[in-house]
């Protein structure tokens, strides 16, 4: 297999930020037992961080012992949601502009979200503008549902994707 980037830059993984008690609450630690019921009907919208948490642990197809987060291929700020339209926009950054794995990475992200996001969300996936030499081609492929559907019926490709996704559920 061709090596596209033998020595990628590694970044410090940022653990998801600690959630303090709700600003509205007065109590540092709430001993009240009814707390849970209070929150029963409060809706926690799906946000940037949650979606990032879904994809950050996907294995990089070229560096099997590193995740997309380690290599900053995906970051929380590169994820945008418009809850009103139910559209999720995901931008990822290949480690090198000639990385032949980019389509596979994008496909893995798509499949992961296909399986783990509510169906109401339409997902658009693109590489970071200017981060890849064949940016347009990759984006077009990743967002052509027919091509994606066909790709997932291709055993070889599907295995490759599954390989990247085994680590996806290790999220802490």
């Amino acid at each position: 297999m061709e090596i596209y980037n033998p020595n990628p830059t590694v970044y410090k993984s940022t653990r998801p930020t600690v959630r303090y008690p709700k600003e509205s609450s007065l109590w540092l630690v709430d001993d009240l037992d009814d707390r849970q019921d209070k929150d029963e009907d409060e809706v926690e919208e799906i946000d940037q961080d949650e979606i990032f948490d879904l994809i950050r642990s996907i294995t990089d197809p070229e560096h099997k012992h590193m995740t997309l987060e380690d290599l900053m291929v995906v970051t929380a700020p590169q994820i945008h949601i418009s809850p009103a339209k139910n559209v999720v926009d995901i931008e990822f950054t290949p480690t090198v502009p000639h990385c032949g794995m980019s389509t596979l990475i994008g496909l893995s992200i798509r499949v992961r979200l296909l399986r783990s996001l509510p169906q109401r969300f339409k997902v658009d996936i693109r590489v970071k503008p200017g981060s890849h030499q064949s940016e347009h081609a990759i984006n077009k492929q990743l967002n052509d549902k027919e091509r994606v559907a066909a790709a997932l019926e291709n055993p070889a490709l599907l295995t490759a994707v599954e390989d990247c996704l085994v680590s996806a559920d290790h999220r802490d």
Partner: protein
Amino acid sequence: MTTGRDQDIEETVKVITSGGAGLLNVVKALGEYLTAEEEEMRTKGVEFLSSVLGRCPPEQFNRQSVRVLVNFYCGKLEDTDTLVPAVKGILCLTSLPTFTSPDAVEVVKALFSNVTMKALVQSVRFTVLSVVDSLLARHRDALKNMGSEFVIGYMGLAEGEKDPRNLMLAFAIDRVLLIEFDVEKFIEDFFNITFCYFPITFRPPPDDPYGITPEDLKQTLRSCLNATPAFGPLGIPLFLEKLTAGSPITKRDTLRTLCSCLPVYGPAAAIQNGRKLWNSLRLEIFQPTDTETEEEALKATQVLVRTIYDTEEQRNAPHQEIEGLAKEICEECIKILQEPEKNQGRYATKTLCAFLSTTENICRYTLSMVIPHLTGLFRNPDEVTIRAAIVTVLSEIIAAARDVSSTSTTQEVFLLPYKDEVLGVLVVGLKNPSSSGPAIDGLKSMVSTRGLLSDEELGYIVHNVNELLDSVGGSADESTDALLELLVSISSHSPRHVEETTLPLLFSSLPDSASPREADSERAKYWRTLTSLKKLCSQSALFETLVIRLSTKLDFICEQGAAPTTDLEPTAAYAHALLHTLADVLTSKVKDDHPDVPKYIERLAPRLYNLFIYSALKSDGSASVATDPRLIKVAGRVITLILQATSAQKQEPFIVGLYAAYLQSEVTRLASGAQKITPDQLFVPFSPGAPLAQKNLVHLFSTGVVAARKEVEIPVPNPSEFLGTLLMWSVHSADNSLQRDSAWHIIASIVNKRPEDVSLFLTGSLETFWPNEIASSNASVTTRRFAINGWIWLSKALWLRGHPLSTQYVDRLFDLFSDATVSWDAARAIGMIGGSDDILKKPNHSVLKVLYAQKLCTRLLPRIIEGAKITANPGQQTAHLVALASLIKSVPQTTYIHEISALMPLLLRGLDLPDFDIRADVIDTLYVATEGQSSKPTIVSEHATTLVTIMLRNSVAQEMPSIRVRTAALKYLALLPNVIRYDILHPQKATVLRELAKALDDPKRGVRKEAVEARSNW
């Protein structure tokens, strides 16, 4: 079982031992057989003889008989039909004292000339090798003197052996020969008959009876391969080849073997092959297939370096003069560290760290190379952004250096020469958000390096950390936590600096009065400050300051009496937060049993009691936050924690004071502090019509009692009467659950620790309390429910210590199953008795019999299962189901797993119970059970389809309001595919995925996470 022949043998042996017949006569007697024409006869004959010898005690063999037998057997070796039994016979002889070296020589010669191993079965080959082994053990010199003849002969026997059992033996022999015999000219041949087995690929058959593991073989083989330096020139190339070719397993085996061999093969060989070796090791380190191999490779590198450099002249050489491989590798790594932010940098760092723990010289040398490089790079980097990476590397090096120093015999502090520049870099790195994380790690490592930093330098670090804490205003992120950890580790060496500079800083940021409701940011600020204090102040000196400052602050803000109209909530919350901080620190201190905790029974407890009693007694209408139950609760936690750590003899006076205060209104011995309690204010929480505020304080009574040690006496004239009244009070006079629970906790812990003092109460409760307060249906439902709860605590206290009365108490509950009004409460009670709670537990010095939960289960389960089957009375049946659910969830699964097939259908029915908590419990139970069954999941498989359907029904928000149930159901669904065969689940796959898709849109983040996991597992 014994065959006819066995008896004959026994007989003969008897005759011989009884001196009836000499061994030789037996031989004579057998003569015709031993020399018979028919092979079978001969075989049988020799067979028989050998068996007899095998069972004869050694003293029966005099020198002469041995002589004859040796001769005889050696002769029989030439005869293929008697060879096999002959070898057996010989093996018996070799171990005899009367068996001499000449015999040994004769035997081996005979073996060499007659035995062709290939023709023999494993067991016989084994015997042959055993003979050699036995001779080698007893007549080594004789065999040595045989010289080449023996060596060649043996190699003939050992060659081509395949069976692991025999190999274990052969390898052992090989080692002896290689070490002790003169094998120089045969080294090639030995190489061939040993290295040919490397790497061991043997897989033991399932349930292999000889229990020889591949690891055993590998170890024994290694002991041959590293037996002689002479193998070096031949061995190393072979290892190199295996390294490049092999699978990860082979690689690891090779690396481990290399580690065991190189030191033996010696510097010369190591130097000669050094570069080649490093080239393949580098590959494993810099493009690791897996971490395990990577680590082995690093170890091997260390061994290689040690082998080369851990020699006399090297040791004496000053480190500047390190030449050759180590130098090259070092330089190579440092070159890579020109780009420390890159992936390869990681591995270079690992390599260098590995270097530090090779030889002290190398360690000094490596540091002298890498530290200046890094500090230099830090001072003028190509881009500032890589500084973070530099600091990261530096920190790892520091940590490694520390570990070396701590193990070094000379106690040398290798980092000392570079202390200043490193400290400089780290402090700069500390200031920059991107690099502060690793910088903190580095500083921690420096702090924890013995003899590295001076007290002033510690002060310097603290000073810088303070500035940082101040600037971020303690905005709670990871770095703050890390900073605090750093301070903690510093204060464990010298608390002074933190105490003098950091704490004042933090305390000063605590407001003197609570910020109003809407002032979220200020509130957040004091939360963070308290969190910081909590992390910082468990060291004794610091904790003392903390206690003084916080309790003073507490008194102060509680004192601010206010008109009843004003909003006390923020103040209460603030006070609560203060107490909570104390409680949290205490918790960790008690856990690590710090010796300074007990003294707070005098320093802190009285102040708290004073504050709360005073506030409860306050007669002027002004409301005080210290009457807020939530504050009382957390104060109670503090008190219990202190008592947990206190000795009986220190508890004694406190307990006396406690009772005096609550029962005789003598508060002076218990409470003392800022607020003045005037004598005219009577503290009478138990008296009829006592105000709510006082009655709530019964909680602080219980929290004082529950952690009392069993040696401490109950300072009341008639304990039984006391408990009796208290129990009635809990049912009839108490206003709220806080008061009721408190009363029950007191009763429970006394009954559990000193039942003998309250035997009357125990019998009395059975005779009067049960019938009047619980069984009788003219009592109101509410009081009956309370009474049942009281009963649970009683039964539990007794059951935990295995008190004779406990069974009576527990069984009573079943009488209520038929009583519709309270059957559910009774059923739930069953589980609560088995379950753990926060009162009756070891830390509180409760008396706990081992396996009490199991015992409860064994006693009740059959009865419950039976009851749950009776369909006659649905009410009763449900009650039994509820009991089952609540019991099972409170006991370890080992206690019921054997019943699982009987339980499964019941549990499934339990999932239809309307009560969500019970449902969730049942699901959790099923989870544990299913997980436990993963080895043989038959029972689960039978019900798989039903389970899936039920769980789906419980996992979607639209149909199941309870978050807990949804989460549990999804967790369970996620588990199934790992436990149940695919083909069983497949039919439902489509449906499951469709349903789970809905769960993905759950309003709750936590539930969604489970849904995601479940769906990807399916």
